[in-house]
Structure formats: C-alpha cells, structure tokens
C-alpha cells in the first residue's frame, strides 16, 4: 500500500523590535520575572494598547520576503479565551484581515524544487509565561506578555517530515536574513505547530488531522512528525482512524501524547479590537520597505557562485544562514583561498557547531583569527591535521591560532635531516614491522609512519616521513 503524508505548519516567531507591540516596555529576553512590565502589557483595567508601527513594518518585511500580498487595509481583532498567563482574557491578534496573504517558500525535494504555499502572515501579541513549581504551584512571569509575534501559516503542501524540515530551515534563514526575528528556538522566539494526516493513495481514505503543539526545536518537530506519520499509517492499516485532537511531543520518550480532543473546539469569539483603530497601509510604505530588504538567501547563493567561484553545493550551504554567510565573507576578505575557507567551514566548523548545538555567532573566535589559521595551514607551517587540532583549540579557548601554534610548539617539521633521525630511531625500534613489510604486508608502512608522527606529536611533515620510510624500506 502506498501512503501520502500531508503536513501544514503554523509558526510563531518573535519579532526583534526593541519595544513591545502595544507599549514601550523592552522585549529583551531574560531579566528578573515581571520586571519588563507596565500597566499596558499587564492589561491593567483602564490601560489601552497603542500599536507599535515597527511591528507592522516587520510584518510587511516578512510578507515581502515570502512573496505575500500585503493588505492595504488591515485591523486587529480580539481572540477571547481564558488562560492564567493571558492578562486581558483575550489576545490581540488578527482574524479576517491579516497583514499578509498568500506567498510561498521554495524548498529542495528529491524531485527538485517545490513551492510550499503560505496561507497568511499576521501579527499578534505574545502571552505571559506560566512556571510550574515543584510543589504544584504556578508562578506567572509577564515579561513576555506583549512581545510582538508574527504567525506564519502554511498550506498543507508538505508531504514528508523532511520537506517540513527544509521549509522550517528556509523560513528561519529568511527571517534572520531580513532581521525581523533572531529565531532562537531555545529562547522561544520560534515555535512551531504541526498539522498532519495521511492519505491512503489507493483507497483515497484520509486519516483525521492531528495537531502537534509547541515544538521548540527542528529536531523534535521532525521526530514528532515521523512518529505521527507512523502512528497514522498503523491505525489506517488496522482499519482504524485517528481522532481530531491536539497532541504534544515528549522529547524524552520520543512520542506524541494526546493533550485534548478537538471535540470541544474553542470558540474564540473573535471580533474587531475596538481599542485600536484600523490601519491603512500605503503602497508607498510597502515599496519603501521592499527597497530596504537585504539580499535574500537565493540571491546571495548565486552571487557566491559567481564571486567566489564556488560549487553550487558550497554556496547553498554557506548561505543557508545569514551569519554563516557573513562569517564566510569576512573570512575571505582577509585574502585567503575561497575554496579552502569553504571546505573548512562546511566540514569542521559546521560539524562542530552541530555537535555542540551552537550557532555561528556563539563561536569564540573571529573571522580574522579563522583566516589566520587558513593562512598558517596554506603556508605549510602546520599540517591539515594539526590545523584541525588548532581549530578545536580555538573553539574551546577562543585563542589566536598563531599563539596556539607557538605555545604548543606545533610548527611542522620540514627539515629532512631532523625527520630522518626520528625515522631511523623508529625503524630500529620496530624490526618486526620491517619484516612484515618485506613479507608483503603494506599496512606496516602506515604503522611506521604513524609511529613517527606520534613521536613528533604530529608535527613532522607527513609527506617527507612517507617518502623517507618508503625509501629506507625499499633499499
């Protein structure tokens, strides 16, 4: 049997404006609980919201970057529901006239490029945060209440968790490029809800859509989708169906758990926010924002291919994140080889970042220091392998590569005479290896080279070591 997966996403992204959506309180992350609050963001009786124009501008920016239509007339609405951290008993959001409609994000699939369509992008306020204490109590921190968000809603156009992941990565990258959000998932500035179901392609039977709420990393999003995909198929195969429900993903157990069924679907009683006047958005304003948009990932990639003569693959990897692209461009501006820089970034740096779950901007060394490292390697002063060691050191200590090389005495030994002494010493110590080699065991050569490198703590020029040992063994 063959099954088709259908996935739609809703992404909430915190906008990186300095002040909140309806007041002048700071949006800065952290701070002691309830210190970034005023009567307006706390929704105190009598306080009134006044819309921060920057929020509208950022929303338009996002819409333009995702090819959406920007509304000329838009308004805010109230979404009414009860939750302890919801200060006013309603959330100010947008309902029937969102700021942006339509648009798309292009992703790479096995079958080439694919457009994932967007339904809408709208602006709204964030709520406070409930903190559940060990003794069963609930504490409330309203620092986040009134932080501006955009909600991006996709059409159910994705057909695999992989496509959804690509969509999320592209979306994050673009939002960072246009600097409307820092998309720090660990700080909650990017959150994602998934709607997923399965169609049996032979019978056309569909499973009922389930919603997975509040996924706070791409990794868990993908895992949650994979889990759901499997669960839906198994149920369909058993002739059962899923129920309309909201689930959450348990990272530790690696499974989704039902939170509530959708039978008692909330009635949000949306109506136009009477405290905020409707907004007219002029085409002139939209055009000015369009002009202010920076180079987007696609354009940057094409430029990288041309300007740095990089393969498309390299250019795509390097431009996937704005900060990575920036790091690359800064590095090569210190006149180092384009391709060497690309190789090291795509290999060692990205691997390390992934292992450590770090972002480019968290690295403890500068692009200048990184360029210095490439120069030392290219000059032959240290080997590639030592270079990687130095890079590791730079990651850990954040020190200048020249200093590391000097302090640890890592400069490559290129002196044939000096190396020959060590080679002779090694051969003397390992007569059985010489015997093995003569009996046709080629591995022995590698072992001997390794021994020399070990003795020199990796500093001997491996080319020379190889050459000398081969010469001596064959003589």
């Amino acid at each position, binding site marked *: 049997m063959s099954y088709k997966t259908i996935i739609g996403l809703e992404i909430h992204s915190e906008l990186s404006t300095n002040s909140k959506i309806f007041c002048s309180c700071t949006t800065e992350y952290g701070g002691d609980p309830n210190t970034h609050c005023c*009567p307006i963001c*706390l*929704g*105190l*009786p*009598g*306080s*009134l*919201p*006044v*819309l921060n124009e920057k929020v509208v501008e950022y929303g338009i920016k996002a819409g333009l970057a995702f090819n959406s239509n920007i509304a000329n007339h838009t308004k805010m609405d*109230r979404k*009414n529901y*009860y939750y*302890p951290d919801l*200060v*006013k*008993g*309603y959330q100010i959001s947008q309902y029937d006239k969102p700021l942006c409609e339509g648009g798309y994000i292009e992703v790479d699939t096995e079958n080439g490029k694919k457009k994932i369509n967007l339904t809408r992008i709208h602006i709204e306020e964030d709520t406070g945060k409930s903190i559940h204490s060990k003794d069963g109590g609930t504490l*409330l921190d309203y620092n986040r209440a009134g932080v501006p968000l955009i909600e991006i809603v996709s059409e159910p156009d994705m057909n695999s968790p992989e496509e959804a992941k690509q969509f999320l990565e592209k979306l994050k990258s673009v939002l960072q490029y246009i600097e409307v959000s820092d998309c720090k998932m660990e700080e909650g500035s990017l959150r994602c809800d998934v709607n997923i179901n399965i169609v049996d392609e032979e019978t056309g039977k569909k499973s009922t859509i389930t919603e997975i709420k509040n996924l706070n990393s791409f990794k868990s999003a993908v895992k949650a989708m994979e889990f759901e995909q499997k669960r839906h198929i198994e149920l369909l195969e058993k002739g059962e169906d899923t129920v309309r429900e909201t689930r959450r993903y348990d990272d530790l157990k690696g499974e989704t758990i039902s939170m509530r069924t959708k039978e008692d679907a909330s*009635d949000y*009683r*949306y*109506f136009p926010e*009477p*405290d*905020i*006047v409707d907004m007219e958005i002029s085409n002139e304003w939209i055009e000015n924002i369009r002009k202010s948009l920076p180079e987007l990932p696609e354009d940057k990639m094409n430029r990288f291919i041309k300007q740095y003569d990089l393969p498309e693959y390299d250019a795509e990897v390097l431009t996937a994140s704005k900060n990575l692209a920036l790091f690359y461009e800064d590095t090569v501006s210190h006149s180092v080889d384009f391709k060497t820089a690309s190789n090291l970034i795509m290999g060692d740096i990205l691997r390390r970042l992934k292992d450590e779950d770090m972002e480019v901007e968290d690295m403890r060394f500068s692009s200048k220091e990184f360029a210095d490292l490439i120069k030392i390697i290219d000059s032959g002063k240290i080997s590639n392998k030592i270079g990687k060691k130095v890079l590791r050191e730079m990651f850990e200590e954040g020190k200048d590569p020249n200093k590391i090389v000097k302090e640890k005495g890592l400069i490559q030994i290129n002196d044939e005479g000096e190396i020959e002494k060590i080679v002779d010493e090694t051969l003397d110590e390992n007569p059985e290896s010489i015997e093995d080699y003569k009996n046709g065991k080629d591995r022995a050569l590698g072992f001997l080279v390794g021994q020399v490198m070990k003795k020199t703590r990796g500093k001997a020029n491996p080319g020379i070591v190889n050459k000398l040992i081969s010469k001596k063994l064959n003589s």
Partner: protein
Amino acid sequence: MDYNELSITRLKDKLESGEVTSVDLIEEYFKRIEKYDNSIEAFLTLNKEEALKKAKEIDEKRKNGEQLGYLAGIPVAIKDNISTKGLKTTCASNIIKDYIPPFDATVIENLKNADAIIIGKTNLDEFAMGSSTETSAFQITKNPWDISRVPGGSSGGSAAAVASQMAPFSLGSETGGSVRQPASFCGLVGLKPTYGLVSRYGLIAFASSFDQIGPFTRNVEDAAIVMNVIAGYDKMDSTSVKREKENYLDGLKNDIKGLKIGVPKEYLEGLEGNVKSQMEQSIKTFENLGAEVEMMSLPHSGYGLETYYILAPSEASSNLARFDGIRYGNRSSNYNNTEELFVKTRSEGFGEEVKRRIMMGTYCLSSGYYDAYYKKAQEVRTLIKNDFDKAFEKYDILISPTTLSTAFKIGEKNDDPIAMYQSDKLTVGVNIAGVPAISIPCGLSDNMPIGLQIIGKNFDEAKILNVAYNFEKEINFKQTPDLGGVK
C-alpha cells in the same frame, strides 16, 4: 454660599480674590459631605487628607504669586471607574473592591495639571452597567431632589454629588447615556463629548467603542471650562483624535440667530408627565432666540436600543474577561483547578446585571450567532450613524428630551431589565453614532427636573455649548433640590 454660588466660575473668582482659600473650600465641601452623604450615598471613597494637603500647597503657591493651573484649588468628584493613582478605583464591583491603580487616567492627569483637587470617588452602576446606580455592589445613591428616587445611572454618584452640593463639578462616563440621563434626573448640565475627543486612557472599559468621559456641572460655562481641561489628543489612546486644542469658552456667548434646529420625531414618542409640554416650551424658547426649528426624522432610531444592547455587552463580555481571579487580589477561596478558579471568582465577584450582560455579549459573539447579532448590529450602527450625518447636512443641531420621564422610584424597574434599558432610549443613538450631546435642565415635572438634549455633529462641542448657553440664559432655570428635606 447659595447653590448658584457653587459654580466653578464663581469659586474661581472667590479664590482669586482671596475671599476664600482652597483649604476653606475643601473643608466646606467635606462638611457638606458629612452632612448629606449619609442620606445621598454618592461617594464610595473620600480623599480628605490628600485633598487638604493639596489645598495647602495651592494656597501657599497662590500666596507666593506662583503660576497656578486653571482649576487651582477647585474640588472635583470622580466616577469610580476612572483610574486614580493610589486611590481605590472599584467600578462599584466586588471583583476589584480593593483595587488601587498604579497610574492616573489621562483626564485625571489633566485635572491635576490644572491643579483641581480630587475629593473622592463616586458611586456608579457596577462597571457602569445600569441606568439607576442601583446595581452598585456597595450602595444605592439617592436623587437629591427626592431621596426615594434614583439619581439615574450609571454615573449617578457623580450627578448626585454635584446636585447635592457636595462637589462643584464631577466627571462621569457614558456608554449609552450615563452622563446625560443622570444630569437630566438631577437637574444638571451633563456633556457627552465626541468619541475620541477625551482620552479613554485609564477609564475602566465597559464598551470601548462607545465609552467616553464627560463632565457634570452646575451650568454651561462650567462645562466649557472642564472641557478645556480634559479634551485633547492623547497618544496613549489609539482612538483619540489628533486635532488642534479648542477653547470652548470662545464664542460661548454668541447669539444663535438663524440657527437651524431639527427635532427628530422619533424622539418624541412615549414621553411621560410634563416632558412633552416642556419640550414644546423649549422649542418656543429657541424660536424666541431666533432659531429655525423643524420636525425631522432619524429613520433608524427605532433600532438604537437593540443595536446598543448587542454591541455594548459584546464588547463588555471581552473587556471584563481580565477579572478572572488571577490578578487584582480578589479571588474565590473555593476551587480545585484553574477553570473553577475563573468560574467561581467571576460568579462570586460580579453582580447580576454584569453577569446578564456578559452572558448576552458572549452569546452574541459566539460562532453561529455572530453574523445574526454582532455583525448585523454593526451594520445597523452604520445606518444610525448615516442618519445623523445626513441630518447634520441640513441642521446645525438636533434637540430632544434627554429622557422619556423624570427620575423613577428606587426599585421600580429592578425586576424588569427591559424597562430599565428603556431609560436610555433617547440617549443611546448619540453613543452609537459617536456624536456629542449635552443635557441641560429645561423645567420641572412634579418638582423633578427635566432634561433637554442638544446633539451636534462630530467635534461640534463649541456649537452645542453655545446653543446650551443661550438656552440656559433665556429660561433662567434656578430651581434647586430642597436639601432641607434630605436626612
């Protein structure tokens, strides 16, 4: 001091000439409060200590010849749904009975900048929902003209305070007529400004798209003075309108010859007692003043009450959601989970009328009913607005009685919410359209005051005040409540 001596204008003269000090004045008013408020029950909170302190400061400044604000040393009473920093603001509801706002409403800031002195907070229908000040969770305010009658509502406390001479002026708020109707019942001048002219910042919302703060004064000139202080653009209120500040005293005394006045015939149906004959008398008065008066029609006014009683509760159901037991201290002590906390806090904290309106509003906004009620009412709202726009193409102002009858008896309409809602019949249209209107006394019926309503087009407060001033001078309404009968 006799009653008419207690106007802002006269008090200002006395203070400026040194005949009285601000401290004298504050003490005098608190004496009156001590004498009458046991019977009238207009005040919920008194601010005596702070008021005297402020009065001393102002007297000192005056002595030193320092620059003083326009209302320097003049006492004012404030409806208890307008936020006053450090002073309890309860909306006459148990749900926030101990709430002390950490900020001042913009109108309070304006009054303070003008050096007015807040003497206390006045009673109202709970969350301004009512037409009699009987739905207050704390006390029933009495009409100073006859304490067996209501003062009107919802700003009944503010009206009664001024009518019983416990304050020279006060602020109320309007959602469907809550300044004009009590002004009419208590024989005062009450003005509902154009929506957006006076900042709503700090006014605890009932229905945001209707609410507007307005003054109660003893005469029209005082209303103009208060408007000079409280009107103006406020960046804290997105619905506040950006426009030049106006001086409402300019042109106040100009004559009104040639003024075109329309009388909506729909507003003359169902009038009780002498209201109709007083209206006819008022029309004659205007004609004597050289105005042209004509009967005309506001064809959609028949839908006013229904439109209002769908839209206002809808907004109220949302505005009151914040009182959920999580903040503001008042919380049910008897709950097992969060939902129970919400439900029980609200069940225990809100009175019957508030609950009724929350239920109506929630129903009208709920999916499946939204189109039939809320949306439909919004459409009718536009029609009603258009009626006024069209009328003002032809007429400078419209006049009508403010209410169908004079003040009714306490308890008379308590068991019949619909009858109670009818009290707003002649005032709601103005709130629906957002236009300004004033109520001024025009006569008596069985020794109870009757109000005349003067309606203008948007931002035509100056015109309304000018017309009202001429009318007031012409009829010379001097009757005052017999406070000797108040025990």
